[in-house]
């Protein structure tokens, strides 16, 4: 079973580093807890922190051992990168939990991480033959559309102003689930199936508009449909982030499939025009842009910095308070920012790990995207290549959209920072993607 030649030694070595990170973080939290001068409003009992730290280390090595058995040839850097980001997430949840009034936050995030790793291994095992994903591509698309439909209907009954509006509550046990997390995986599979069958058609251009070459009119249909879906999400669910994710995903896969920059230029121009029209018509859009533009405005009557812009302003203050090397784990005050454990996890991390830490975080995401694209170059079947590109693009777009939102570069959206933000649906969905990428990395031509 444990063939020495085929053992995943690189992965084992790379997994040691997140473990050391968790242990050092645990040690630091314990010292902060024992400081005579209380620097945080609530302190963390040592035993409460014990389970999430050691539980996650055990879960990572457990997943490693299972991968040794079921997928010995799969890429060895994906699990360590995802594990490192998950470690940051669990550590931040553990540290923020007591301060935001949920002392078991770290424990909950650990439970999601274990579920995620289990689902990841299960995905690798279940997709030994990737053809069943491809054969049922319209079923996946239908599942995705139904999920969006439910969300659209459901979101009208929501009155919250939270950026994450696409939440479905299941039963009365307090379990909730974000359909958009599953939607993005369904869409990647569908796009990969559709584009791999039609890539030749899309590569032909006999319609020329000035310098732009457009595909034959009948193949423009899906493009327009996707643009429509993105705008529908934006208008119906009022989820700008999800709209950008769906549309960006489709564009990146379309570009890789057709190698036509004109499609991208044309689609982006169409999207910009659509966005402009929406901005003119809907006060909601104007409001969101106005909040970003005038976040620091303290003049009455709006007093944006204290009301709608409070989160953005406090988030920026958290980043600023971090400085270059950060305030130190457990020594920041980022819990003042609303949703500091979910939408503003980057600001919380930025305050305690500083500019240096945020750069390292971005570096980790860049490496994740690099490894994904590296995997995409190897398979021979275009369906597999496109799927790897799409799954990688999911990580890339999400990271850019939420980091830009946190840093006041674009309107804030409810997209979670992959692996780091607190939340079960997102963590599990991201581990499904890692599982699929691990499986795709075994397909070498």
């Amino acid at each position, binding site marked *: 079973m444990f063939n020495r030649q085929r053992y995943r030694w*690189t992965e084992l*070595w*790379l997994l040691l*580093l*997140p473990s*050391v*990170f968790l242990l*050092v*973080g645990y*040690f*630091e939290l314990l*010292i*902060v807890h*024992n*400081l005579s001068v209380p620097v945080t409003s609530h302190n963390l009992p040592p035993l409460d922190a014990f389970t999430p730290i050691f539980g996650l280390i055990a879960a990572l090595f457990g997943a490693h051992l299972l991968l040794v058995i079921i997928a010995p040839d799969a890429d*060895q*850097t994906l699990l*360590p*990168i995802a594990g*490192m980001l998950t470690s940051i997430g669990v550590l931040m949840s553990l540290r923020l939990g007591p301060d935001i009034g949920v002392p078991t936050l770290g424990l909950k995030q650990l439970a999601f991480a274990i579920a995620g790793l289990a689902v990841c291994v299960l995905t690798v095992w279940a997709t030994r033959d990737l053809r069943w994903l491809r054969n049922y591509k319209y079923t996946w698309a239908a599942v995705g559309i139904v999920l969006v439909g439910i969300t659209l209907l459901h979101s009208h009954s929501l009155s919250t102003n939270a950026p994450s509006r696409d939440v479905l509550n299941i039963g009365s046990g307090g379990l909730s689930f974000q359909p958009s997390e599953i939607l993005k995986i369904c869409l990647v599979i569908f796009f990969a199936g559709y584009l791999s069958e039609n890539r*030749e058609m899309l*590569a*032909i251009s*006999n319609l020329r508009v000035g310098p732009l070459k457009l595909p034959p009119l009948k193949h423009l249909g899906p493009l327009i449909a996707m643009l429509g879906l993105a705008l529908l999400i934006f208008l119906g669910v009022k989820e700008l982030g999800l709209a950008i994710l769906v549309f960006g995903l489709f564009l990146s896969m379309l570009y890789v499939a057709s190698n036509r920059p004109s499609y991208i230029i044309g689609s982006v121009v169409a999207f910009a025009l659509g966005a402009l029209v929406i901005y003119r018509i809907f006060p909601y859009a104007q409001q969101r842009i106005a909040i970003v533009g005038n976040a620091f405005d303290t003049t009455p009557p709006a007093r944006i910095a204290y009301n709608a812009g409070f989160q953005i302003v406090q988030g920026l203050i958290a980043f600023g308070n971090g400085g270059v*090397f*950060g305030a*130190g*784990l457990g*020594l920041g005050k980022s819990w003042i920012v609303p949703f500091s454990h979910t939408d503003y996890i980057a600001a919380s991390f930025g305050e305690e*790990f*500083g500019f*240096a*830490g945020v750069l*390292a*975080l971005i*570096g*980790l995401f860049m*490496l994740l995207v*690099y*490894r994904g694209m*590296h995997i995409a170059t190897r398979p021979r079947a275009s369906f597999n290549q496109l799927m790897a590109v799409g799954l990688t693009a999911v990580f890339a777009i999400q990271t850019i959209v939420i980091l830009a939102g946190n840093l006041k570069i674009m309107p804030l959206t409810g997209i979670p920072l992959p692996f780091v933000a607190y939340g079960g649906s997102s963590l599990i969905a991201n581990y499904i993607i890692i599982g699929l990428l691990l499986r795709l990395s075994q397909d070498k031509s």
Partner: protein
Amino acid sequence: MDNYQLLLYLRIGLVAILYLVILQIVLVSRRDLKRAEKPVAAGVATTRARQVVGRLILIDSGSTPYKPGQEFALEPITTIGRAPTNSIVLDSTFVSTEHTRILYKDKSLWVEDMGSRNGTLVNGQTIAQPVAVAPGALLQVGDVRFEFAAA
């Protein structure tokens, strides 16, 4: 060493671990790339030593972006079609995905239709079986016409 000093070291240590992870993954990726480079180098060597057995001169470019007079080198196996995997790619709606194949066999060039929708014409005749061609012969693939020439 008091607690605050220890906290400073731990704080720097935590960020340092993050960079160590990045460094290690970059090193692993570099090793992967070096391993993958070898077969690529071998591929370059074989394409450089390819054999040219004849030429095709474009007479009528149809709806493709090529200019009449353009020359295409013929290898021992040359495929013509719309798919980007072909040796000669003809981006035209009248050309099938894999339209025509030209083989070099017994010191002669043979044209073979690959089951195309609009057929392959040699000297104006639709071909059903592979036919041998000499320099000067005319070849029509979809709406594109070529003339054979010696290497």
